[in-house]
């Protein structure tokens, strides 16, 4: 594998192959993390574009000695998401982003939508770890590296996030059982000022 730092330098000079290699390698995880954090495909795509454009800049801030390129890109996404919140842009799910053709039945689709909405309603600190560990399948140490926090923090946040999600889903199940159908919507939760570390 060619060193990513070299690929980055070549891409910044306009080498299409180098950029394509980097893009194909990293756009998926970057897009999915942005999607899990924002809840909107359009926003996630916008962020992917901004992240990779920033990467092309000669002063992009990536230092190979400080960590992996993917960790740097995830960190950039987090900053951009925070920036979006600061600018007052709201991440509200306007259209279902779950592909219906991949679901067995309507009930499963509904179940997953509720889960998705519950994840989007988590505080960003918790949403980040859920996105990286549970949705993306990274291990604790990789998530800790990407988020720039200790491994124990990832573990505790994930534990707490799962507890919140379980509670929300149980509450939903009880409501549905009572016949009070009230679909969950993606709720906007501003990025917490404290606790988001990088």
């Amino acid at each position, binding site marked *: 594998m060619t060193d990513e730092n070299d690929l980055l330098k070549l891409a910044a000079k306009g080498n299409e192959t180098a950029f394509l290699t980097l893009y194909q390698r990293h756009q998926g995880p970057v897009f999915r993390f942005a999607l899990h954090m924002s809840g909107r495909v359009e926003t996630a795509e916008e962020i992917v574009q901004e992240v990779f*454009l920033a990467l092309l800049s000669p002063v992009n801030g990536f230092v190979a000695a400080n960590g992996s390129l993917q960790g740097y890109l995830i960190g950039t996404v987090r900053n951009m998401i925070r920036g979006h919140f600061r600018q007052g842009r709201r991440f509200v799910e306007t259209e279902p982003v779950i592909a219906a053709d991949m679901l067995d039945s309507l009930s499963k689709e509904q179940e*997953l939508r509720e889960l998705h909405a519950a994840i989007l309603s988590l505080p960003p600190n918790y949403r980040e770890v859920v996105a990286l560990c549970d*949705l993306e399948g990274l291990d604790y140490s990789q998530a800790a590296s990407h988020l720039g926090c200790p491994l124990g923090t990832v573990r505790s946040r994930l534990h707490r996030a799962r507890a919140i999600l379980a509670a929300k889903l149980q509450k939903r199940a009880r409501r549905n059982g009572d016949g009070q159908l009230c679909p969950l919507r993606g709720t906007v939760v501003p990025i917490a000022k404290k606790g988001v570390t990088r």
Partner: protein
Amino acid sequence: MNEDIELIDKMRRLAAALPREAGPEIGDRLMAAVRARQPRRPPLWIYLAAAAACAALVFSLTLARRQPGAADRVYLAPGFIALPYSQSGVPVENAVVIRVQMRPSELTSMGVAVPAAASTARFNADILVGQDGVARAVRLVD
């Protein structure tokens, strides 16, 4: 614990159901941005103009070498010897001849052949001085 496993399983199914990658138009836009960064080559006519300018310069330098300067060839009267390092670009128009007495060593340094027997004597010599005050040539009188 079972609840956790069930929840994680649901989240994996959710992750599989969500879009995995950004749309192709994002990649296209970014590739266009990369292409815009490629250094552009100057048009062909710039290369041609530069080559023509170089050729003209070489030609004019060659020509200048072949044709001696006006100051070199015109104003040295018979018997005068041009002084080394004194041929400026200013042509000699109003020259003055100054007669001086010079030592043989001084004449030799100016390129004038002096008889070896007269090594201590002084010789009369004419110095041709241009209107710019620069001595251009020397002539042994005796």
